[in-house]
């Protein structure tokens, strides 16, 4: 009988301890859930002190699909992954140019939410451009 109590206690302890915990993919899972299957319309682009507003124009949008593919209103298609490199969250986009050559574009995720997305395009030279999207 004593063994039965110990076994019962062990099962209860295991049940409590084995409940869900943070894993390496928790953050990317949450960001992916906010990012995918929406049309993200560009509202502003800011490069240095130059701000361009596209509010209400719906001129450019990009979509990140749940299957890992992406497409934009210019007709560019490719694949993407959301990664956390160091402490920086990023979107790595693999595109193909009009000539069929592969091209990787990396965006730092400044902020992502259900309706607001802010990206900063990673550049090797010059000033980075911040892109402000909304999905409404």
């Amino acid at each position, binding site marked *: *009988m004593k063994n039965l109590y110990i076994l019962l206690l062990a099962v209860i302890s295991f049940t*409590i301890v084995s*409940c*869900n*915990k*943070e894993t390496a993919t*928790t*953050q990317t*899972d*949450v*960001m992916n*859930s*906010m990012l995918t299957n929406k049309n993200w319309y560009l*509202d*502003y682009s800011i490069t240095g002190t130059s*701000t361009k507003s596209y509010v209400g124009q719906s001129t450019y949008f990009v979509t990140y699909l749940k299957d890992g593919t992406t497409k934009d209103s210019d007709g560019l298609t490719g694949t993407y992954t959301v990664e956390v490199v160091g*402490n920086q*969250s990023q979107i790595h986009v693999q595109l193909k140019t009009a000539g069929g050559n592969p091209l990787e574009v990396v965006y730092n*995720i*400044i*902020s*992502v*939410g*259900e*309706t*607001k997305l*802010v990206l900063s395009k990673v550049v090797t030279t010059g000033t980075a451009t911040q892109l*402000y999207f909304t999905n409404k």
Partner: protein
Amino acid sequence: MRSTRLFSNKFLLLFSIASIAASSLTAQTLTKKQQDSAYLLNPGQERIRKIKKSLAKKFVNFVGNDVSLFGSLALSKQNINDKGVTAPINYLYNTVNSNTFNSGYSGGFRIDGIYKEKHRYALSFAVNRVAAGNNYKNKYSLSPFIDDFTHFKADNNFTTINVAAHYKKLLPVNAMNKYKFYAVFGPSFDYKISRISNEQLINGAGNRAIINGDLGAEFDNKGYYVLYAHYKLGVNMTSSSVPVQLNRFEIGMSIKAKDLF
């Protein structure tokens, strides 16, 4: 002749057993219910009886223990400080910040007794369904784009198991032989047993253990039932990137188990 003697011996033996049984029954003056339960003894009951006896020997100073069942309505609000979150996630402030008390409920059992015939106490075990309003302490903005947002979204519906140890101070109010009023205080401990969302787990924010300080008042109506109102102030038991302060008001009633069953 031999059969008559055998019958006589058997009769004497039977008579003796019956006499002993009858005398023991009259000596104990068992009620009808006790007599019935005497026939229904089973290994489980016997084990419980032994445990009770053993506990009574060990906790000789803890007397008058009454087991009661209780249920309560709980109003909850949590204050959330998300300054430790580094994930670049935004939740629009106005959509997640209600800053109100939302209603949940709880149920369980408690043991009320007296320690050394002087100090009244209550030990309780409960399961709580908490529905909490959220008050986010920090607001962020990303001009010109996002006015107010938070980096973190706390779960506001969750289930906990709760263990509490309360000291009860009898208050000299009214006719104390009929109605008793108590001031109640003591610690309690909550452990979240429901699933924690991924959003709550980010950056090590998903703590399950909450330690509370409880304060309240109780009204005992001639021992028939107890009405109570408790306030619980809880904080994360271990350090967290998102310290949460959980405020709860509980209004409930307890009834002695022996009166119910």
